[in-house]
């Protein structure tokens, strides 16, 4: 598969590491993993680590927005960290930066998610 998803929990944050390419073909994989994890226990926040994401198009934006809306209902927040330059351009255009927390590193994202909650 051209996308791998790795998850771990740190406090109240579900950390999702994406490895590979996120498009219409692979977006359902991420959605399913996150929904499964969120059903397991009351996750408050989600952090998507994009350090090893090599490609993302607007299908990624749609998937992120979908998770964001689900989180909002439960009072949770969303963050994205380690955004590669090419993906930054796509995210910027979508206006996602206005509603989602952006961080340079996973650690920074987690502490900001926890402080603000």
């Amino acid at each position, binding site marked *: 598969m*051209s996308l791998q998803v790795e998850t771990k929990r740190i406090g109240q944050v579900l950390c999702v590491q994406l490895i590979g390419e996120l*498009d219409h*073909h692979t977006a359902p994989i991420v959605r399913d993993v996150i929904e499964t994890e969120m059903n397991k226990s009351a996750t408050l926040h989600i952090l998507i680590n994009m350090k090893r994401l090599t*490609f993302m*198009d607007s299908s990624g*934006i*749609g998937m992120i927005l979908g998770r964001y809306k689900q989180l909002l209902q439960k009072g949770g927040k969303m963050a994205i960290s380690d955004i590669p330059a090419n993906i930054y*351009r796509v995210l910027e255009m979508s206006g996602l930066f206005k509603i989602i927390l952006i961080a340079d590193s996973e650690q920074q994202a987690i502490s900001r998610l926890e402080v603000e909650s």
Partner: protein
Amino acid sequence: MRRKNRMELTFLSQSVNESFARITVAAFISQLNPTMDELADIKTVISEAVTNCIIHGYENREDGIVSIVAEIEGESVMIEISDRGRGIENLELARQPMYTSKPELERSGMGFTIMENFMDECTVTSTPHEGTKVVLRKHFSLSEELLN
């Protein structure tokens, strides 16, 4: 001498072919010696246009035919992505940022906006029940060594 090159690609409307299509176009364009950023942008727009053919044009049927023509002339590239699917009724509405006819599929409505922003030119023509064609153009500034 102005360099000229041309390729035509057709494939079935299967989502597994989205990455195939962007790799192929990127490989063709690479003879223009694009920067990493330019190559990433090309991959993104191809992915947008091809995904649209599959989701919207053929509504996820897997036996539709998606066509890509790419032409290099000098330092410019023209890429045409087309389907023979359902077509677009209202082109102006379709091109609005954030507009999508399939919010239930978690579409963001940003496909055309990305194509317009990442390319120099983005022309869309469509006939309902006949299909849709997107023509994208971009100019690359060749590095000195390649101009010889």
